């Protein structure tokens, strides 16, 4: 299936993707939407990355998603690339996956005949460029609950350049404080494992605690044990580990000050 074509066409040129038939989804405009409901936000799979980045609804309720969208590829690519395509391509560095993990999104897949099934995003990816999608299924929409009004979030993408960069490490953090203690913490990570992941053990260290300098340092240490980065042409595993630690520290401080 092809929508924006921003991964499919380069993959076909590189002969990484070989297919006799392409099903064009790009004209399914009824699947390009961002709907605000009382308790959740629903995004149609054909919504372009540009639309995500500039959506007032997303900027208001899920700024980490619009920030991540704004750093995907470049402006020309963002006008064609879609959120469904970014998730279905399932790069371990997929830009929209990281905030969607922190937002605890649900991926709704549909197949011929209208049968739908929902998969929580942290179960959607099964490996590099692999998802739970079966033959004949496509992503219909992505749903996430509106975060509580006191939730603060931050996103950071480290790349080798300012645009057109595949992440070296990317991280999205959502935290809710209640009085002085952390009530909720969610950390999504990209490019540091075989798929985009949540850092559940590090999150547990934060919940119920006051955010002290020592705790932040401890979390920055702990997160390096939850990730399994590789060395590739963009960065070494050591650098990714080191940067994940630094970025987490910055984001926790940013969302809790």
């Amino acid at each position, binding site marked *: 299936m092809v929508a924006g074509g921003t991964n499919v066409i380069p993959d076909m040129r590189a002969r990484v993707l070989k297919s006799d038939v392409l099903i064009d989804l790009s004209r399914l405009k009824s699947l390009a939407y961002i709907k605000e409901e009382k308790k959740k936000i629903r995004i149609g799979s054909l919504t372009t990355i540009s639309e995500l980045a500039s959506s007032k609804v997303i900027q208001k309720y899920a700024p980490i998603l619009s920030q991540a969208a704004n750093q995907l590829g470049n402006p020309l*690519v963002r006008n064609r690339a879609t959120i469904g395509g970014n998730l279905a391509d399932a790069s371990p560095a997929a830009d929209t996956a990281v905030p969607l993990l922190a937002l605890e999104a649900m991926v709704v897949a549909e197949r011929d005949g209208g049968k739908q099934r929902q998969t929580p995003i942290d179960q959607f990816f099964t490996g590099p460029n692999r998802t739970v999608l079966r033959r004949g299924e496509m992503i219909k929409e992505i749903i996430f609950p509106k975060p509580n009004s006191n939730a603060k979030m931050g996103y950071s993408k480290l790349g080798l350049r300012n645009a057109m960069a595949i992440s070296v490490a990317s991280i999205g953090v959502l935290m809710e404080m209640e009085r002085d203690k952390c009530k909720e913490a969610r950390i999504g990570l990209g490019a540091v494992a075989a798929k985009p992941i949540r850092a559940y053990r590090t999150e547990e260290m934060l919940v119920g605690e006051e955010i002290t300098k020592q705790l932040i340092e401890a979390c920055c240490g702990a997160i390096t044990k939850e990730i399994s980065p590789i060395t590739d042409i963009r960065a070494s595993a050591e650098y990714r580990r080191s940067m994940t630690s630094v970025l987490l520290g910055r984001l926790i401080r940013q969302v809790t000050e």
Partner: protein
Amino acid sequence: MKPIKTYPLELNINGEWKKAEVAPYETLLHALRERFGYTEVKEGCGKGDCGSCAVLLDGKAVNSCLTLVLQAHKQKVVTLKGIGTPEKPHLLQESFVKRGAIQCGFCTSGMIVTAKAFLDRNPSPSRDEIKTAISGNLCRCTGYKKIVDAIEEASKKLK
């Protein structure tokens, strides 16, 4: 060799409707250059990394190398020639010439298409916003400064 099945295409290019029979794997870039003769649209990388192939598709700047031409069926495409001509140049083209923003000229078509779509949406940009807007258009010659100057100057004149 088995003949390729072709499909009918209708495309509005710079205001004119064109028809053709195309193969499904043909890109918009290829169709514009080879089929219809709009050779101002350049192929730099063919994979969406350089921006030389930028055209406006329904008003949005896109990489024509990443669009299959049939995906643009019945839609409006604008190339550089639809933005300005030697007889009637667009202010952006005049600024690019005046400011020395053109050396070899290969990136220029994509730059101006991108800049036009950008200024249409953001008529009073900062220099940083301009730089972000052209972050998908590579230039190997100028070092970008004069391109940013030209777009900034054009934005002031267009008001």
